[in-house]
């Protein structure tokens, strides 16, 4: 197997927001990861863990507070104006709420065709052809072109968003909770569609979601985030079968399983309490306040994200199975 080409390198990414009175929300704190050409990287975590902010910061929306983001060999954090705009052709985004991310007053053909018009791609006829091709690719009738978003359901609006994101033949698409607003029956359609589009257009995806089942379904590798940090990163099968971080294990234990033979509530709560505030995160390991394995040392020294097994990274002083009985 040849080593996959690294498309995106995120190093020490930090995003902070002012929270008034001189305090800061530490949304993302020193995150490192690579994205390989052609893969789907899942970013999973609970609300407030920084997964969406990480996705957006890659597009420089918002600009990271510090750190580096190298896309295809180019540093994005110091690009401005026209240069940044040009790079963004390659990087597209699909948002959570498909209805509010489409302009209600415009027709579908204008929504999907706008990126083409802005970049002046081809002639008017060629652009119209491209819109028709995209509508067909995402499973919408060509007649949809003349209609407006309110005439479509949530699932169909998400198809329109996907078509718009594909218009400029991007390389990397950041999908921010693209199916969270959809019912399960429609969710499955959109997940299948994303897989098809990835295949057809040779895309690389960063898939942000709180839903562990959805992330497993679409991802090759998965990064688990907690309070602005990546706590574990591994291949999808490996991460779900053999989690090394106590938070990952707790998350996996907490998923409601659609199988009546699995008796929930038999085990005690996987983790107690709520996540702490990102304004004042705990010292040392940020998960230690809820961790069943925490020791005083965890409060003093922050565990680095270390490669414990090939391709399996974990940020924990006492990873699962590594200390018990060793």
């Amino acid at each position, binding site marked *: 197997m040849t080593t996959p080409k690294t498309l995106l390198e995120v190093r020490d990414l930090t995003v902070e927001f002012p929270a008034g009175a001189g305090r800061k929300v530490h949304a993302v704190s020193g995150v490192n990861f690579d994205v390989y050409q052609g893969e789907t990287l899942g970013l999973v975590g*609970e*609300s407030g863990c920084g997964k969406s902010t990480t996705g957006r910061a890659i597009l420089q929306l918002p600009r990271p507070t510090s750190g580096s983001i190298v896309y295809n060999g180019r540093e994005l954090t110091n690009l401005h104006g026209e240069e940044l705009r040009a790079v963004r052709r390659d990087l597209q985004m699909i948002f959570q709420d498909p209805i509010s991310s489409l302009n209600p007053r415009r027709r579908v053909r204008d929504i999907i065709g706008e990126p083409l018009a802005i970049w002046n791609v081809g002639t008017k006829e060629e652009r119209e052809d491209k819109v028709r091709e995209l509508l067909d690719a995402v499973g919408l009738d060509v007649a949809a072109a003349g209609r407006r978003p309110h005439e479509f*359901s949530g*699932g*169909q609006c998400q198809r329109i968003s996907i078509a718009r994101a594909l218009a400029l033949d991007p390389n990397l698409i950041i999908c921010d909770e693209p199916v969270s607003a959809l*019912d*399960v*029956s*429609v*969710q*499955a*359609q959109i*997940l*299948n569609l994303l*897989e098809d589009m990835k295949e057809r257009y040779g895309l690389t995806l960063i898939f942000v979601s*709180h*839903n*562990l*089942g*959805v992330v*497993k*379904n*679409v*991802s*090759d590798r998965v990064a688990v985030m907690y309070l602005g940090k990546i706590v574990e990163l591994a291949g*999808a*099968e490996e991460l*779900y079968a053999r989690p090394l971080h106590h938070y990952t294990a*707790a*998350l*996996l*234990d*907490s*998923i*409601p*399983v*659609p*199988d*009546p*033979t*699995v*008796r*929930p*509530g038999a085990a005690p*709560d*996987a*983790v*107690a309490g*709520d*996540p702490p505030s990102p304004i004042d995160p705990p010292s040392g390991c940020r998960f230690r306040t809820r961790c069943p394995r925490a020791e005083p040392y965890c409060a003093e020294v922050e565990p680095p994200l270390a490669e414990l097994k090939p391709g399996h990274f974990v940020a924990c002083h006492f990873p699962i199975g590594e200390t018990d009985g060793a």
Partner: protein
Amino acid sequence: MTDQPLLVVEDLVTHFRTNRGTVRAVDGVSFTLERGETLGIVGESGSGKTVLSRSIMGLLPPKNVVSEGRVLFEGRDLSSLDAKQMRAVWGAEIGMVFQDPMTSLNPVMKIGNQVTEGLRVHLGMEKERAIETAVALLRSVGIPEPERRMKQFPFELSGGMRQRVTIAIAIACGPKLLIADEPTTALDVTVQSQILNLLQDKQRERHMAMILVTHDLGVVAGRTDDIAVMYAGKIVEKAPTRELFTQMRMPYTEALIHSIPKTDQPSHTRLPAIGGRPPDLVNPPAGCNFSPRCPYARDNCHHEEPPLMSDDTVTADHAFACWYPVGVPVRG
């Protein structure tokens, strides 16, 4: 009379008159709930599950609503009670937990007053005793430092803590029935499992009956005795929980279960998706509501509506509304 079922819902209909026409939100729903039993009501958005739970509680807007059918709670017809009589039922006999704990708590009232209100009004407790009881209740739903929390306002609590408070309020007066409408949808997954475990503990401890309304089959899978699946305002299948997952008969139930991505499937497993989308409840399709999306539909499905019925391939508690049930060889 203690042998009668706790709750009998008979041919319940709730239609809303709107500018677009009549929305048939709940369209002829019947079921029975015994004391201490838990029933999961599952459906996608717009299936009528929330309107059903509100119709049972009598919490519908006063105007432009067509209500038919009966809701018998311990033999009393709730739909014949006036607002004053219903106030004696709400909280005292039927408790309710809603989806969003921020909007179901009063933002300008201290937690303590919100928990003691029901105790004083329904149970006639003295102030001191009500406060003691409330502190004990908050402690029993897993709120640390309940004395301090009593003096706080809802915004000072996290989402999970707020939902614990609404559960404490709902069970304060010892209701015989607890209706929980998407109680964990607004919560994160680790907090969700805490709250579901709490609801289950309280339900067992107090031998309450519980109706758990949710869009997530995973939430009800291991936690209910029976599950009713709703589609377009009707119950399309109702069965003991285990049987529903192993011997579903309604193609919609099958599709719903199979379209959930599961963590034990390998990555990139193609999901069997249901085509199309749920019907418009102003103009529901003729015949079976699911027929336009159903892979097994035949001619008669498009004009004859199947009744909710049982047959000899399933247990007596299992009913489904389908002419060509899955897993059964076609007869005739």
